């Protein structure tokens, strides 16, 4: 199960020894690859959609960490330097935020020793853990969902709530692509979309140009802070819809409200397990109270990543019933690979969702 464009986007930034080991192990993976984890002096670790495994010293995978190949200091150093294109100093802000983004939108999480400057992280040095999260493009994964986010030919402002690794970025990317291109099936004409891609994950920009398909009417503001980016888009690019990944800070909430007052629909994602969960976070609670979002989509992994657990109506109307996972007849979500079988039908969790309180 080798991810698409793995050879061009991920292999070249791995230390040659690690690249060889991973390349040899990938064909043995039972499910699509989600993460490659390198930890100094510890086993090479792969996470896939149905579990995890270590890379064996000889060929193949193992569950026994003592029989696994170990990543050395040099492996980590080389990989980190190559991920930063040999120029760690050029990515200081990202490294301070604990991540780097590779060509193609794959995000790399970093851990190591933090260097502090009056109590705040100035940079990370001696990076000892790297977590490469393989970005996946699943065109059409929003097919089943999109009609429920459209009302009277217009996109309803929607908050996508999801725990990490449940496919919110993948879903957001496909929603942006379809809204931008137009979806006759959902009664939606293509409209201008402004995407603020702070971590370069959604559009996977290289030198500002999207490497992922985000639609023909989409403008991407790459590596831009969310709140500032939303304001900039509204002021100068006249979008009908603004899309933004992982909101949560008060400044983000303010920008979302600003967008709504300007008559722009907002598609946003937030970490969480349920609407109630998100409503406990002050900035998001305020948004929900103010009626900023018409719909909330809750994602989970109950039937693989990308399972739509609930579609809740936040606009004071009757709650929509939970529907099928991404796209009728599409199987169940992003993790559905050959052999996993199709599974259209109602999602098991949720029902008419309404925010409590």
């Amino acid at each position, binding site marked *: 199960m080798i991810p698409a464009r793995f050879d061009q986007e991920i*292999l*070249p930034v791995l*230390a*040659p020894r690690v*690249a060889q080991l991973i390349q040899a192990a990938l064909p043995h993976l039972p499910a699509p690859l989600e993460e490659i984890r390198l930890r100094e002096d510890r086993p090479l670790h792969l996470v896939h959609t149905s579990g995890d495994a270590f890379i064996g010293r000889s060929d193949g995978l193992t569950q026994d960490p003592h029989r696994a190949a170990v990543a050395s200091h040099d492996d980590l*150093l*080389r990989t980190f*330097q*190559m991920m*930063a*294109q*040999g*120029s*760690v*100093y*050029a990515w*200081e802000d990202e*490294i301070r935020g604990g991540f780097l983004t590779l060509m193609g939108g794959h995000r790399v999480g970093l851990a190591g020793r933090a260097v502090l400057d009056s109590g705040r992280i*100035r*940079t990370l*040095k001696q990076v000892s853990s790297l977590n490469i999260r393989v970005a996946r493009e699943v065109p059409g994964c929003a097919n089943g969902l999109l009609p429920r986010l459209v009302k009277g030919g217009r996109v309803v402002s929607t908050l996508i709530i999801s725990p990490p690794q449940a496919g919110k970025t993948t879903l957001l990317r496909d929603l942006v692509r379809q809204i931008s291109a137009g979806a006759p099936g959902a009664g939606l004409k293509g409209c201008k979309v402004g995407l603020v891609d702070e971590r370069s994950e959604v559009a996977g920009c290289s030198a500002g140009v999207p490497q992922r398909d985000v639609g023909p009417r989409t403008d991407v503001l790459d590596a831009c802070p969310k709140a500032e980016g939303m304001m900039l888009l509204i002021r100068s690019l006249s979008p009908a819809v603004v899309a933004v990944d992982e909101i949560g800070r008060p400044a983000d909430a303010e920008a979302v409200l600003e967008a709504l007052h300007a008559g722009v629909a907002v598609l946003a994602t937030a970490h969480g397990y349920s609407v109630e969960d998100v409503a406990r976070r002050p900035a998001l609670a305020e948004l929900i109270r103010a009626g900023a979002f018409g719909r909330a989509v809750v994602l989970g992994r109950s039937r693989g990543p990308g399972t739509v657990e609930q579609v809740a109506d936040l606009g004071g109307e009757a709650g929509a019933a939970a529907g099928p996972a991404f796209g009728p007849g599409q199987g169940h979500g992003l993790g559905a690979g050959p052999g996993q079988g199709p599974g259209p039908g109602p999602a098991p969790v949720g029902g008419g969702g309404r925010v409590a309180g």
Partner: protein
Amino acid sequence: MLGKAIGALIILGASSYAGWHVAGGYARRPAHLRDLQTALAVLQTEVEYGATPLPIALRSAAGATGPAVAPIFGGAAARLGAGSRGITPGDALREAIAEEAAASALRPEDLDVLRALAGTLGASGREDQVRHLALARERLTGLEAQAQEQRARYEKLARYVGVLSGAALVLILI
């Protein structure tokens, strides 16, 4: 007799050439050390103000400096460019030094400064990089002063020694 005269001329010519060559080394080394400092100054500016990625920053350093030193930086940039797998900036610079530095008048101790820099090149934050680059430039300034002094002392001497040792050899052989 004619044979002897031709032999004497060949000996004199060869020894003078050797003297001139050694003197040339003394004369060119300070200039090449200055070129090296110029290249590092450009690199520092690119890193400090532009946060420019190294392949591009190394190319601008190569473009701004003299032809004897430029291939070291250009070579490192080319090694770091597209298609390079598993090569860190340090590896690239060390390889480029090994291959390109022979054409210059730089001495091993001059190149050691660059090799020391290679260990940290690109591997840390901006402030740290600037500090390492400034340190390397400082060491090169010291070496340049030393090279100037050696030039004043040995450049002419090497020429004289070349010509005179040739003449002495001719006298002995006659």
